[in-house]
């Protein structure tokens, strides 16, 4: 049933989700291959979570085709769910149970025998660095710890495919880096990951391949590097002008670079050589308050695809 190696683990064709007259996912196509980390990047409301919920068999497909591990979510949800690990956007740990009980009870839902469940719980608590909190209640844990416990819980059935919906949203930088490190190790072990995020750095750190979603559709697909090469330049010069009326700059930046993007707070100059462009700005005596040359990122990809920034 799961097909030859190299076949897609998740395959979507014209996948659509509607809530009444609102279309959350509008006929998207994608393939997730075994052992890759596949990302859905896009702003809030782009349709990422709806897509995830359809893959996780938590939300019925309105239209189109979806195969998860070679099976149909409409008729084989139980079999699919037995082989998935799900980390939802909002933690839904069992707050009436302790840390350890959360893992062991979850194992029972998968019919995992008690002795196996106990040894897996030990291993996973080590893996997410929560062994010392095993006997504690869930509620007093920090946001990062709850997230890590949710990830451990999602791994209790040794899933073939792990789905993570915005795994680090709302966490402080330290907690995010710890989580990224764990997810990276998971990938090294050969797990297939699907990750949604509206953080560029997260997508660049974790994803082998990703699709950019906007307004219920996929607008681009590729590896982070491919996307940057295709939709942005090597470097970006960010200019801030302070109080100066930008209208008065009209035309002054012309010919400076292949593309200039105006944002409310700054102007982005897309060029392969940021320093050279900055020299040119100074030579033209343009009154700049501050300037910064940086490498292009997925943020720029999104901006060039949609004309908007990702996190508003």
């Amino acid at each position, binding site marked *: 049933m799961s097909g030859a190696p190299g076949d897609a683990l998740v395959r979507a064709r014209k996948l659509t989700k509607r809530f009444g007259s609102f279309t959350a996912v509008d006929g998207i196509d994608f393939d997730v291959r075994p052992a890759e980390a596949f990302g859905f990047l896009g702003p809030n409301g782009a349709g990422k979570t709806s897509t995830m919920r359809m893959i996780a068999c938590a*939300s019925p497909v309105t239209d189109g085709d979806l195969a998860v591990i070679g099976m149909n979510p409409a008729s084989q*949800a139980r*079999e699919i769910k*037995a082989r998935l690990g799900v980390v939802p956007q909002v933690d839904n740990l069992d*707050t*009436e*149970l302790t840390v350890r009980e959360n893992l062991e009870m979850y194992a*029972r*839902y998968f019919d995992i025998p008690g002795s196996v469940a106990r040894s897996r719980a030990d291993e996973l608590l080590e893996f997410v660095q929560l062994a010392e909190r095993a006997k504690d209640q869930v509620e007093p844990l920090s946001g990062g710890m709850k997230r890590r416990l949710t990830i451990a819980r999602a791994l209790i059935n040794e899933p073939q495919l792990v789905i993570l919906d915005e795994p680090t949203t709302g966490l402080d930088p330290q907690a995010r880096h710890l989580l990224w490190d764990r997810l990276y190790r998971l990938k090294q072990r050969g797990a297939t990951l699907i990750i949604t995020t509206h953080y560029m750095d997260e997508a660049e750190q974790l994803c082998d391949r990703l699709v950019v979603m906007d307004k219920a559709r996929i607008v681009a697909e590729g590896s982070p590097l491919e996307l940057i090469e295709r939709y942005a330049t090597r470097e970006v010069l960010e200019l801030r002008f302070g109080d100066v009326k930008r209208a008065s700059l009209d035309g002054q930046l012309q010919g400076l670079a292949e593309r200039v993007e105006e944002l409310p707070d700054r102007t982005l100059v897309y060029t392969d050589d940021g320093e050279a462009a900055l020299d040119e700005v100074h030579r033209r005596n343009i009154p700049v308050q501050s300037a910064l040359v940086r490498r292009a990122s997925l943020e720029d990809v999104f901006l060039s695809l949609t004309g908007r920034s990702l996190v508003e």
Partner: protein
Amino acid sequence: MASPVAVATQGGLGRAWDVVWRARRLVERNVLVYRHQWIVILSGVAEPIFYLIGIGMGLGGLVRTVGLPDGRSISYTAYVAPALLATAAMNGAVFETIFNVFFKLNFRKTYDGILATPMGISEIAIGEMLWALMRASLYAVSMLVLMTALGLILSPWALLTLPVTLFVAATFSATGLAGTAFLRTVQDFDIPMGLIVMPMFLFSGTFFPISAYPIPIQVFMQATPLFHSISLIRGLTTGLMGLEQVWDFAYLVGFFSLAMVIAMRRMERKLIK
């Protein structure tokens, strides 16, 4: 050769049994949670006993005997005890399926986590009902033991009291589950508790025959499940069995089925989007 219909029915029953079997996981979960909170469950055991002592013996001192339609006179305590038994079954089931399920459904999001496993909505709904049933049966058994000890069991029909009380509890857990999915806020609890459970407890012939009330109340009460539960269980413990009790049972079977259908649909609408 089995007919296709028979095969289909068997398949259906087999699947239904699979669901019930998997639903035991939810019972295990609740046992795990209540391992730390047995006192909460025990308080439910004490409640009908307090009523029996407080009202049964207190009021029983004034009323002494109650005349039954078949001409016998029984002690007031023997009259009120089966009603308290039915009420205990109702309370055990309703408190579990309304309060606890509401919080798990709306605030704790417990079921969203469970639904990511091979467990489905039917397993969750039936699991919660089984647990409520276990809780109610604890109340029922302790009440029955007490009634036997006090000599309040007047008929061999009483052997059926335990299974019937469990069925009553099943009816109320399905009803509670159906109702809880309609509740939106914590304040909404006052509606089922204050406007449905409490008046049913008072007017269902619990403490007095319903003939004591005006006709409209009598008619209305005869449409409620607690009235029929009390009439049936009282019939069993006092030996007053007749056509009326057959109708009580038929009514409860119908009410249970309806509540089950609504409960399943509502849970599905609440959890699957």
